[in-house]
């Protein structure tokens, strides 16, 4: 099974048409696709998960104090360079509110839980597990939702894929995201002072490569599932994104017009 998946991944990454065709024609296309999404999503979240395990044993008070220190550092920078923060009264008010809010969070964290013998770290540990195990589901939801839209447009463009074939084929987009294992590690190394920025940039670059590679595989997979040209597959792949973008612009314009009208009416 594992060697089969590795061979599939290799063929997909090299855009081997025979691999795509065989995957689409297979009876297990969807099962394999979902397995790939599950495994790769868990791998992508592995390093943040491990960091989360370590972090769950830190005292929450220390973490809040650290967050407060970082926040205050950022606000100091804002106050130095942002003209909006030059009014001493605004500064004083803001500092008072922020320090009270952090003090409030500290006090809330120190409250005993409803079942008082339960340690804080156990809750955080379980949450880290929960978030990690949810990663494949989040990926699954986003991928399936988008794939349905792509399938709709592919049908309009004359595509002949069945639902199972389409879902099974497009799930292959996930293969290059195995690189996210590396980005997760680099993101952790990004916390190292001084050298961190380099790791952060490298992580972003690798993430970008994985993303673009994934889109290219998505297009190829859509073409293979629908048995039409790469041009039509590209169109079917990007049209839903364009539609969402257009919708977001229309909603944003409507909101702005609404605010302007409301402001005009209140005068």
């Amino acid at each position, binding site marked *: 099974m594992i060697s089969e998946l590795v061979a599939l991944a290799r063929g997909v990454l090299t855009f081997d048409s025979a691999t795509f065709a065989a995957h689409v024609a297979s009876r297990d296309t969807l099962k394999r696709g979902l397995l790939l999404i599950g495994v790769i999503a868990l791998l992508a979240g592995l390093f943040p998960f491990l960091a989360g395990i370590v972090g769950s044993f830190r005292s929450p008070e220390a973490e809040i104090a650290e967050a407060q220190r970082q926040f205050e550092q950022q606000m100091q920078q804002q106050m130095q360079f942002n003209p909006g923060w030059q009014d001493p009264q605004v500064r004083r008010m803001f500092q008072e509110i922020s320090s009270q809010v952090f003090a409030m969070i500290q006090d809330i964290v120190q409250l005993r839980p*409803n079942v008082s013998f339960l340690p804080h770290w156990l809750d955080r540990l379980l949450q880290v597990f929960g978030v990690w195990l949810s990663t494949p589901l989040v990926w699954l939801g*986003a991928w399936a939702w988008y794939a349905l839209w792509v399938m709709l447009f592919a049908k309009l463009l004359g595509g002949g894929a069945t639902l199972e074939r389409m879902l099974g084929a497009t799930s292959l987009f996930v293969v290059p995201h195995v690189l996210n294992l590396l980005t997760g590690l680099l993101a952790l190394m990004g916390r190292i002072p001084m050298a961190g920025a380099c790791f952060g940039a490298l992580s972003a670059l690798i993430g970008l490569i994985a993303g673009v590679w994934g889109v290219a595989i998505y297009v190829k997979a859509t073409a293979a599932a629908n048995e039409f040209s790469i041009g039509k597959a590209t169109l079917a792949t990007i049209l839903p994104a364009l539609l969402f973008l257009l919708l977001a612009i229309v909603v944003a314009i409507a909101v702005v017009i609404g605010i302007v009208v409301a402001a005009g009416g209140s005068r």
Partner: protein
Amino acid sequence: MEARPNLVQTVWGAFFLREDTYTGMRDDTQRIKRALTLIIVVGLLVGVTGAIGRLAEWAFAPPIDRVQETVLNHLMQMSWYAGVSGNPRALATFNQWYNLGWQIAKALAPSPWALLGVITTPLSFLIVWFIYGLLAHLAARIMGGQGSVGQTLACTALAVAPQLLSLVMVLPGAVAAGVGTWTLVCNFMAVRSAHGLTGWRALVATLLPLVLAILVGAGFACAGITVAGAALASLGGAQ
């Protein structure tokens, strides 16, 4: 004669959109019994794990009354609060909104009442399945479908399979994303298999009940907002 698949095989096949699972359910003589068993078993599993997850969230959370008290203590130390507390009308309005906010928070916060989910989850699955199944049947018939009510209900029961993804919610902090989308996909397969419809017609029949539900929901929301607005306005006017 082919042996009838067991519950696990049925859920497995439904989740992975196996055509034979859907047609097998459609043609089974005991389809409604199987559908009911499937929904109750999945509902109980999801209900039990969900209740455990919510109970764990409650167990780890501090008592919400203490949180409310702590927040108020800190708000009272802020300079703006002195201005508010000096004005009885402003203080009354502040207290009213503050308490309303916490009442909503308490209603949404996890509590031992989450154990009721063991009963309410399978019950809600049954109700949703029955209403959706009937509406989908009507829609499919309008679109030219040939299936019976029993066949539609039996096939749409298979769309409960993705709910098993919610088992992850036994852990606090977990989210069962994708369940809705995958349920929609399974319902599409169910309507198509039960009625022998083409893709487009099956899609319309699958979505029509949802569109109807959204419209009804939006209507209720509008009515609710109007009533709540009127109630708040009358509260404001009373002061």
